[in-house]
């Protein structure tokens, strides 16, 4: 008990807040470093389905993203599911060209292991997805990741 009493006698009434800015700055730097400012607008709906058997990819530089879903701006692009790569909506035959462009950005040794992360909206049917996959096979980019979020398991 004497230990506590001593402390109370010595300390002032107010909490010392001089370290607060440092703590906040630390948090700030953390978020600044982890933030990826969106370099592209996603033009299609993105409600990613959930699943359980997720795997994480180690090498993020090898990943290229493809977005599939119903366009957000239906008056401009129609209501059929479209494929977005980089900043634009493309049609299936253009995918081969896009993959080759993405591949050229990678160092030579990694070109074969390019991974396509397919971010597909829940509402999309298998038809357009199969078309995209056929094109990816044509482009020889055969490693595909179906982007998905963790499903909370109900037991």
């Amino acid at each position, binding site marked *: 008990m004497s230990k506590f009493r001593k402390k109370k006698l010595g300390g002032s009434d107010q909490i010392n*807040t001089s370290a*607060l*800015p440092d703590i*906040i*700055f630390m*948090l*700030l730097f953390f*978020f*600044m470093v*982890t*933030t*990826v*400012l*969106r370099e592209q607008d996603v033009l299609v709906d993105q409600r990613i*389905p959930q*699943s*359980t*058997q*997720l*795997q*994480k*990819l*180690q090498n*993020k530089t090898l*990943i290229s993203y493809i977005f599939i879903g119903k366009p957000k701006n239906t008056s401009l692009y129609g209501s*059929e599911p479209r494929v977005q790569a980089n900043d634009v909506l493309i049609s299936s035959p253009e995918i081969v060209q896009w993959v080759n462009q993405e591949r050229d950005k990678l160092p030579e040794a990694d070109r074969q292991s390019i991974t396509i*992360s*397919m971010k*597909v*909206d*829940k*509402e*999309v*049917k*298998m*038809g357009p*997805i*199969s078309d995209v*996959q056929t094109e*990816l*096979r*044509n482009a*020889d980019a*055969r*490693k*595909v*990741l*179906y*982007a*998905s*979020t*963790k499903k909370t398991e109900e037991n």
Partner: protein
Amino acid sequence: MSNEINAGSMADIAFLLLIFFLVTTTIASDKGILNFLPPKQDPNVPQPDIKKNERNIFNVLINANNDLLVEGEYRRKAEGLDKDFKDFIMNFGAPDEEAVALFNSLPASLQAQAQRKPDSSDHPGEAVISIKTNRGTSYAVFLEVFDNAKRAYFSVYAERVGLTPDEYRALTDDDEASKALQNKGKEGIPMAISIAEPDKMGGN
């Protein structure tokens, strides 16, 4: 007049910036289900004629109404499919010499799961799970079935090396030890999930 700059509002400024970054941050999630597409088909080379016994193929058909046909049986939901997949893979109905050696190397808990049904797969090396969809099938349903198939394989692999499936999936091939574990789990049991080209009926 004091010589020091008043630093009292420093915390406020930092807070403001912090909140800005909190709001704009999207922590990139590169998680998902990995799949390897088959190589491009050469039109000049005829498709190899692979003869496989019907019992070694576990057929899952999904139609445009998202109904499932699992080995000829109608099913409304994909839930519980992973159990069927696992029973099918680990059936060991007619193992050859290699598969008997594989079977003997498995832990007892996995050996106990072998049902040895004559009308199911011969051994894991032969077993293939085939998922066929329709162009009108919903992607979410397909992914659920695919997820179940992966779950069956990962639970077998994990049980073999004495990890939980979550731990097994988190293994990376960065260091030798986890790579060895990964290979030990997979050895002799290839992940054979075939995704057939969707048929055109009833979709778009």
